């Protein structure tokens, strides 16, 4: 009996060997996304998340398409076009001025090569003398600066030296179709955080007869800042601004990026906190409860509790922001796929969820994934299952950066043709857009009928707007 049983089993095995056609479950990210665990935002975090308007338009660096990025022209244009947020990257000058500037190397967006070459700026000694140092002290400081000098890196230059650079002319040379004489005639400066805030409030730079910005005073403070270039005195610059005659009343918020941790002082988060406080933009100390995102057909985000959003790719900065701002200011954790120090290198559902969980753990309210598509052709970290995981955690999804209507339609889900997976992965796959074409994104959202009730219902023509702003 037993013998027969085993003969039967062996035959069955042989049959299995010969006929095996078992349905195989191969790796499927969309299926696996349903299995992975993502942490949820707490009730307190959800409250802060809702400080941010739905389907927000973030003017990426002001505008990279129409204007020299992160300059006065870019931010004035973005404010007037009706963006909800003016987006900026934060760096710190050698003397502690917080800048709105993307590249750590000044060569691409300024004329530094022709102004300073690769040498320590020759004005450095005069700078020290103007701060009250004796001749010998100034000499010694210049010698020390020279010893460790690395040319073209932002944090090796004082703000006084950065003021000497033109941050607008390069744009005309590299963007012939968008070139405008006004970007040269009204010299474009490397912006400071204070500049950015003043632009958002309807101001512009006050200029002298030569169209140079006016700095009314410059004085050494009793504190120091540690940058890549070493320890230096913090210098307080007093700038002058004036009401922008072209201000139409939009009050956008600001969306500030803390860059890679090694680039900036290790206390930049606290410095930004203090600067926001000084300029009435810190909702922790000065809440703006009850203010709507839109008022009488104008942008009012800059007057609401959502007036500031913070963002970073940096894991280290994410932790530090959580310690300084304690989750009380909306925070976006940006994702980029690659092998760099801050990049997500494993973007399968488990890896992706681990970054979302990191965001929740360190008090972020928003995930900012990169998107694919021309002209940048970034990696795609906002596939439907990835957007689903973000949504599942309760976080908002602010992908970056949009340049074409095609990208907008894709990530809004216009091309899905009804093939979502049991509504789990239903569109839209975003809650806002970092856009280089704010006018296009605004029109897209307006046409979808998803902007807030009191939001502007029309968008100025971008070229006519530039004319109006005298560029």
């Amino acid at each position, binding site marked *: 009996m*037993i013998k027969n049983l085993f003969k039967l089993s062996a035959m069955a095995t042989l049959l*299995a*060997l010969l006929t095996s056609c078992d349905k*195989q479950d191969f790796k499927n990210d969309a299926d696996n996304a349903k299995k992975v665990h993502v942490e949820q935002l707490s009730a307190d975090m959800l409250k802060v998340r809702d400080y941010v308007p739905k389907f927000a338009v973030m003017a990426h660096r002001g505008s990279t398409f129409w204007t020299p990025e992160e300059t006065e022209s870019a931010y004035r244009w973005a404010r007037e076009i009706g963006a909800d947020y003016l987006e900026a990257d934060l760096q710190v000058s050698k003397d502690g001025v917080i800048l709105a500037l993307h590249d750590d190397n000044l060569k691409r967006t300024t004329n530094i090569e022709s102004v300073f070459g690769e040498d320590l700026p020759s004005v450095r000694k005069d700078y020290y003398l103007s701060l009250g140092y004796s001749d010998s002290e100034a000499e010694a400081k210049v010698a020390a600066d020279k010893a460790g000098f690395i040319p073209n890196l932002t944090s090796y230059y004082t703000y006084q030296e950065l003021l000497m650079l033109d941050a607008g002319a390069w744009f005309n040379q590299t963007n012939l179709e968008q070139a405008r004489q006004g970007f040269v005639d009204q010299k474009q400066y490397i912006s400071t955080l204070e500049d950015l805030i003043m632009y958002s409030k309807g101001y512009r730079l006050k200029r002298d007869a030569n169209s140079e910005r006016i700095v009314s005073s410059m004085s050494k403070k009793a504190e120091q800042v540690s940058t890549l270039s070493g320890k230096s005195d913090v210098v307080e610059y007093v700038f002058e601004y004036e009401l922008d005659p072209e201000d139409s009343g939009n009050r956008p918020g600001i969306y500030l990026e803390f860059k890679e*941790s090694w680039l900036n002082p290790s206390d930049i988060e606290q410095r930004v906190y203090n600067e926001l406080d000084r300029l009435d933009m810190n909702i922790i100390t000065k809440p703006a409860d009850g203010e709507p995102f839109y008022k009488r057909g104008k942008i009012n985000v800059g007057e609401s509790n959502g007036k500031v959003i913070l963002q970073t790719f940096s894991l280290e900065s994410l*932790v530090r922001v959580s310690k300084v701002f304690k989750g009380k200011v909306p925070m976006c954790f940006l994702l980029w796929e690659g092998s760099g120090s801050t*990049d997500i290198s494993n973007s399968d559902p488990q*890896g992706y969820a681990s970054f979302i969980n990191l965001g929740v753990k360190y008090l972020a309210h928003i995930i900012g994934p990169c998107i694919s598509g021309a002209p940048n052709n970034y990696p795609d970290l906002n596939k439907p299952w990835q957007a689903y995981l973000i949504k599942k955690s309760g976080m908002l999804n602010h992908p970056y950066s949009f340049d074409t209507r095609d990208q907008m339609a894709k990530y809004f889900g216009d091309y899905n043709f009804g093939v979502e997976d049991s509504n789990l992965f239903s569109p839209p796959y975003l809650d806002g857009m970092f856009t280089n074409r704010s006018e296009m994104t605004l029109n897209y959202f307006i046409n979808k009928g998803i902007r807030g009730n009191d939001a502007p219902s029309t968008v100025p023509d971008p070229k006519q707007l530039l004319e109006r702003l005298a560029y």
Partner: protein
Amino acid sequence: MKKYIINALAICCFATLNAQNFDAEPVLQLNNKENNLNFSIGARFMADYAYYSTEYTPMKSGAAINDARIRTSLSVKDWYFYGDFDFSAGKFHQKNLFAQYTFPSESAGKHRIKAGYYTELASMSLNTSRYGYHFMSRSVAANALATGRSLGVAYQFFNERFTLHQGIFAENKYNNQSSGNQGGTFSGRWLYRPLSGENQNLHIGFAARYAILGTGKIENDVLKTGLTLSAPFETSVDVESKYLNAEIPWAKNTLYLSGEALYHNAKFFARGEYMYKHITKKRPDEKLFANQLGGVWSWTTLESWRKGNPLRSNNFSGAYLELGYLLSGGGYGYSGEDGLLLGNKNKALEIVARYSYLNLNDINDGEFFLIGKNKFYPTGEISDYPAASTSVGGGKVHAFTVGLNYTFNKYSQFMLDYTYNNLNNVYFPMDKNFHTIQARVMFSF
């Protein structure tokens, strides 16, 4: 009389040896009694069907031919030559190829020299033929930590109480390393038998292997040695080894130690091994430091470079315990000269059980692992530029198997195993429980 008994024992041992290499006595044999010559040729085939149930990452259920060998041997007086070649998966695999000389002896002990390509000495599990193993696969611990075939020469001694094997081997059998030297190992296995007999044996022993790794690859004018310890789960159908995989860059020397015991009587056997592997490393820091100089963000001093790129030795371990009970059929056999349990005999019906564990995790206390970056953070908190971690997250598994084996006749067997694996691998956090049901038909002639 004593002389005849000894000779009979020696012949018996020799016959056992042939059976060991061939699993079953080959059908085709040519004997020349006049010249004391025997030539044989045989074949072996194994095919498995496995069904896997997993929680997250799928495994490929299905059927596979995992062994298809042609084997041949020649014995001439005190000489024995053996070679076998595997063609499973449609590819040629180099298997055993060795010559063996047994010194004529009047005493009860035998001295033997074995040279060629064959399984290194320091593992009971790997020296046991798969055909006669009683389980469909060897323990995951042995597959990861012990060493398989190498090219070398060994001296072996055995008598009623002792089996003593030791030898030296080359790391790269083809000497085709792109750089460095061939590397070498010394390994041995030493057993004592307090109980020795036809129906019952007990041996206890230990094994050791010391290896100097000489091969590697050249990167930026630096020879980079390394070692990979890995194993699939205890199955032969989906042999993916990513779940248990430890990459050890800069490995230079390995010390493998194991302790083992085996007991059997006619109806029951128990055997087990504990394995430990210690890996030391050597890295040309000065050269690597010099190679990275020349950029703004270079490490500035050798000391700072070393601090940012720490290096330490690693330790891994594993063990298994295997039990078998014959419900019917002929009793268990034992090879005294190799210190190994033999395969089942005709009409044997057997139930078996095994527990094994393998630990390829060597993770520093307090470290944080972020799977989105596949990276350990030594301070336990995330940062952009953490110091390189010295942790190795190769995975840890506990595996439990129960099985049923039936031997139709001396040429064919049927096996049925169920295995549960419990995995702990930081790279596969969603994969904890794996279930496998598998069956095998195999024959040898």
